């Protein structure tokens, strides 16, 4: 049962009879009258349970984009249904205000019996992951508008919020460089990591050393060989979802920033897009002490949707990452030489106790790239000179950076490439490293 403001006004109107007959009996009589009127209104209101509700939700939406949840509400109560319908969503689904104020996803409805209405709630998610919908609450108000009924129907629904992939703006420039790599092959000193592509006519400027004399003799025209970077190399992206990935980076003032994992996901998406266009086979595994997500066997146009789908639900787990387990995963998936990208953190303590112990097992068989998300706040701390207070901060940051540098040096000594970049720079830096390795034929 619900009351409206009219019930309160009706009760307050009791002041008039009470002033005319100032006794306790008048109060009781008026209160009883109000109760009877409310009960009658509730009895005459349409049933909040006898309603058919269908919910239409897009299966997925990219973070930052707008979508909508649609309800079709059909009145089967054999009475006129007047009231409010609320389409409930979690806060981070970003449901918009509808026709009724007081909160998101509220719609005023006025339905004759057996009629239906379509209600649209705009959604603008602010966070990656699955957003299960709440119930649909129907509040019907009686003909007097004084009281009514309310019931919440459990209408299942789920909206999957895919990663934003903001780093896709870097993709065109990196693709251009990839094509340059292709074209440069003819003039480049060929070596390991490049393969014979085709023969074409000599043009002025080509390296004379790449002239294929045998073909020239056959054609009677000067012909050069062209080379291109090797294709069908294998790339395994390992996403560390352990406790260090939960830390927030990019905090500005009271804004707490995004988890480190989100920056890693952006980098993973850009690298996958680039590598799949370059003809390499990309796999992904998200791991802390168990496999949290896995993408394998998807190629071409199916790769990126599969990536986005499986990365959308990956969340940081508050556990220490099991690095021997990571090595096991890599061995299981990669039998031949591959590019193994570890998206993690160069947290000195965590690296010393985990990654350093096993990185040599990986570098022996594979090309390893360790990509780490740095924090701008540390850089700001290191620059503080305003007071002795800030200088202590700066000293701590300087010490931390030295230790990070030492960990980097150790990893490089084992033959791993190390990238330590701010969240926004990590994805392009990782793409550049990939291109450089490809150009050098080190994949």
């Amino acid at each position, binding site marked *: 049962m619900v*009351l409206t403001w009219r019930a309160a006004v009706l009760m307050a109107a009791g002041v008039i009879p009470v*002033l005319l007959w*100032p006794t306790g009996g008048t109060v009781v009589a008026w209160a009883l009258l109000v109760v009877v009127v409310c009960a009658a209104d509730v009895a005459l209101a349409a049933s909040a349970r006898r309603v058919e509700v269908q919910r239409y939700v*897009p299966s997925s939406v990219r973070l930052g984009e707008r979508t909508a949840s649609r309800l079709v509400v059909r009145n089967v109560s054999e009475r006129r249904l007047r009231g409010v319908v609320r389409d409930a969503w979690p806060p981070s689904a970003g449901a918009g205000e509808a026709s009724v104020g007081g909160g998101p996803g509220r719609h005023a409805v006025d339905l004759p019996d057996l009629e239906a209405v379509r209600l649209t709630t705009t959604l603008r998610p602010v966070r990656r992951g699955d957003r299960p919908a709440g119930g649909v609450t129907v509040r019907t108000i009686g003909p007097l508008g004084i009281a009514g009924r309310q019931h919440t129907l459990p209408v299942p629904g789920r909206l999957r919020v895919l990663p934003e992939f903001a780093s896709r703006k870097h993709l065109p420039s990196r693709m251009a460089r990839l094509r340059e790599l292709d074209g440069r092959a003819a003039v480049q000193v060929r070596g390991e990591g490049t393969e014979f592509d085709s023969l074409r006519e000599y043009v002025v400027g080509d390296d004379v050393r790449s002239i294929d004399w045998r073909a020239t003799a056959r054609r009677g025209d000067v012909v050069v060989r062209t080379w291109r970077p090797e294709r069908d190399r294998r790339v395994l992206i390992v996403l560390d979802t352990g406790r260090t990935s939960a830390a927030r980076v990019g905090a500005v003032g009271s804004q707490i920033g995004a988890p480190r994992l989100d920056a890693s996901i952006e980098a993973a998406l850009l690298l996958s897009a680039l590598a799949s266009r370059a003809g390499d086979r990309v796999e992904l595994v998200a791991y802390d002490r168990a496999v949290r997500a896995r993408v394998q066997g998807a190629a071409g146009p199916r790769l990126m949707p599969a990536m986005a789908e499986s990365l959308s639900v990956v969340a940081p787990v508050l556990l220490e990452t099991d690095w021997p387990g990571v090595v096991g995963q890599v061995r299981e998936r990669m039998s031949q030489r591959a590019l193994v990208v570890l998206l993690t953190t160069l947290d000195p303590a965590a690296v010393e106790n985990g990654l350093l112990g096993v990185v040599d097992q990986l570098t022996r068989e594979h090309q390893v790239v360790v990509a780490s998300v740095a924090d701008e706040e540390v850089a700001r701390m290191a620059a503080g000179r305003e007071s002795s207070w800030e200088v202590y901060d700066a000293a701590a*940051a300087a010490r931390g950076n030295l230790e990070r540098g030492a960990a980097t040096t150790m990893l490089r000594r084992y033959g791993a490439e190390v990238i330590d970049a701010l969240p926004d720079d990590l994805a392009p830096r990782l793409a550049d490293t990939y291109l450089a390795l490809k150009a050098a034929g080190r994949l």
Partner: protein
Amino acid sequence: MTIMYGTTSPGAAGPRAGGGPEEGPPVVVGGPARRGFPWKTAGWVALVVAAIGLFVFVLAFTRPVGSNVPFSTANADDDGGRALAQVLGDHGVTVHEVHTVRAAFDGASAGETLVITPHPAYFEPGQIEALTAVGADVVLLAPDPQLLDSFTDGRVEEWYAGPVAGGGPACAVPGARAAQDVRLEAGLTVTDGSGDTCWPAAGADGFAYVRVRSDDRWVHVIYDPSLIRNDSVLAGGNAALALWMLGAHDDLTWLVPDIFDTTMLDGPPGGSGGEDDGAGRPLPPEASAGSVLPQGAIPVVWVLALTGLAVAIWRGRRLGPLVTEPLPVLVRSAETMRGRARLYRAVRARGHAAAGLRASAAHRMAQRLGLARSADATAVTDAVAAATHRSTEQVAHLLYGPPPADDGELTELARSLDNLESEVHRS
């Protein structure tokens, strides 16, 4: 928002928007069947009510055996008077403890003793008048000045004079002679020389005990109420004096004044007294709220209260349950750095802080100057000095000098290192 009226079938109603994939429509007709009476909830409510009832019952029937009111005959603590009351009872004195002036007024009469222990605040004039009207012998323990004036007609005054000097009571009161030495504070003086004054204070003008005859009864005044306290009644001759005063008659009324006692505010009956109700509390008819408010105000207040209830129900009913959402943890990645900085600050670890700043600056400059990672201090110093045209000593002092002595020097060092580094990067 799009609203479309008319009967629709799910297939026709399926909205197509934005080209996004749509999930199959889950259809719910009606809700779950109406549930019966919630016996489980009712059971919990009954259990809680029963628990509260039991608690109240236990509280009501297990009242503490003693009391913690100071000077009460039931109080066995240091500040109680139970020891004295029990000894008096053993010697055939009937002790009635009362807490209101009315009970004292009704209970004590001529040929009995009334002892008045110190009031937590003060007696009202009417109450003093009523107490003075009692015919019994009176023992006043540390009385407030108005009470003392009323009982002794202003002949006795209180003025602190210090502890009692040794050497006996120095008076002829029989009980005092029996008690010999008491351990009390003195501070009573008699203005007109009448009455008995015992136990003078050392050096000052004041006595611990004064007895005056007033209105055909004895009035004993004790300056120091610790005479009857459990913890000090056995000191010296205190007990003898107390037993002699309080045990003079077979009936003793023991008044422990209560700060909330409002009986006899208008003095003894026969004077200009008001009406009391059965509990001894005054109920003047003009005090009730209904009589001061205009006619019909009380029912209006009731209507307004019920309106408030209706508003509460209207505003308090939420439109459906809250939707919960698991949120990721909030840990700043710089938290460990900040923790280390706090540690440095907490112990004023200027040496460590300076070493960190210096090592970091030296590392960056060495990289900039293309020195090997293994380059030692001398090599770095020489290279930096050459790049900045500073003296080797100056650079060595900056990079490898002694730790700063205070926070100011630490800040100064940080700035100097910044300057040095900017010069290297410029070169």
